[in-house]
């Protein structure tokens, strides 16, 4: 299990305990995190689960593969160096305490 925090642009936060093996897009929709839609169910086709990973956590959240890297080009809010599609981050004890920033499309 991992305790994950999503920070919204308006300063609000949502924190939830996430079962190992779930991806963080699923965890976000289950916990009502705004702006995370995950329409394609996590198969890297929609880019609607974009998050910014707190830089100190980047190493632990794993590598961005080629498909994810390309799909990050079509997010509503421009990607940054710490952009991820949260469906590709899988909860594990290693990620306990992870903080994600949720971009808000205009």
């Amino acid at each position: 299990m991992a305790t994950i925090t999503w920070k919204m642009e308006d300063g609000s936060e949502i924190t939830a305990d996430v079962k190992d093996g779930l991806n963080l897009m699923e965890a976000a929709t289950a916990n009502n995190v705004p702006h995370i839609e995950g329409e394609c169910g996590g198969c890297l086709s929609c880019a609607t689960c974009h998050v910014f990973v707190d830089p100190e956590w980047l190493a632990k959240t794993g590598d961005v593969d080629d498909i994810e890297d390309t799909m990050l080009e079509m997010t509503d809010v421009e990607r940054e160096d710490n952009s991820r599609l949260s469906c590709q981050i899988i909860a594990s004890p290693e990620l306990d305490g992870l903080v994600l920033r949720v971009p808000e499309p205009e």
Partner: protein
Amino acid sequence: MNAPIVVVGAGQAAASFVSRHVALGSPEPLLLIGEESHPPYQRPPLSKKYLLGDLERERLFIRPLEWYAEQGVTTRFDTRVSEIRATERQLVTDVGDVVDYDRLLLCTGSSARGLPAEIGGDLAGVFRLRSIADIDSMAPGFTAGRRLLIVGGGYIGLEAAAVARQLGLEVTLLEMAERIMQRVAAAETSDYFRRLHQAHGVVIRESARMTRLLEDDGRVCGAELESGEVLPADIVLIGIGGVANVELATAAGLDIDNGIAVDETCRSSDEYIFAAGDCASFVRDGRRIRLESVQNAADQGDLVARVMAGEDVTYQALPWFWSDQYDCKLQIVGLNLGHDRTVVRPGDSDAVMSVWYYAGDRLIAIDAMNDPKAYAFGRRIIETGKNPAPEVVADPATDLKLLAKS
């Protein structure tokens, strides 16, 4: 208390509507009525990971079951609506309950077309693929060595073929038309997927007209073709397209035109009744069309919540689709309806390519096979109304990212 907004049908469009309604903080109470016993769930994985046994049922749910109550949404699953009394703004359920509605959203979806009983359509061992229940009844028979006959070479049939081969079944796929995917894609895309499936051992029979399924003691045991040829089978899967579920809407007197006819705000011919998703038909580029896709259902459901909340919005979303077969990821953007030219953009290997559809000079759609760049940048190219010449696109030296961002 005011009558609630009632949503009939608990699929992707309904989930998206409810999510947006909640996110907007809209004050009207919601009642969600669904025929199945599950909360809204994702259907695409049914013919992929769920059939393969790689995904637990709960992970199909778009929101967890508890979520609805937590958001103050009332749900009634296992409930069929039998009548809409539009003038009274009331629904009647199959157990005779009368429910008032302030406004009504129909998300009744579509059903998988079956074969008539006269030619064996309801024999044991004959399946369709639409719901969790369909898969749960079919999956136990999906074991290595069994012979699966798939009728229909569209997405459902091809995805099921891929799963079946991965599980070790012998698979034969029949397509009535000259080529698989004829209704949905260009010949180049059909050729790609024919090669892919043949390489994985699927026997593909195109221009193959089946006359009836054969029976042995109440169970299907094969199929007879028009030529008289008999193909033995242990399991038959029918994947010959979907039909919009419009019975309720028809009986209520709503305008129907290949689906519940809606305007650009998803409003039907009754001002208090909206429709979204597979069951709704809408006008795009001068044609009335109906789409069976997650994107369409999700975006229309979302739109209706905004419209009901008073936003001045219309449905303009660019359609996109996907399919996963073996290790091939197909991503599609746009609608190829009315194309008069296609051009192929080759990739680094035989497994990578994209097909670009043009109507005149206008780029209207792309099928990208294992080519997320063609999909992602192509989508941006279409969205921004750029119409690169087909020769430019076909040239592998063209940098799509530059083209998209120029």
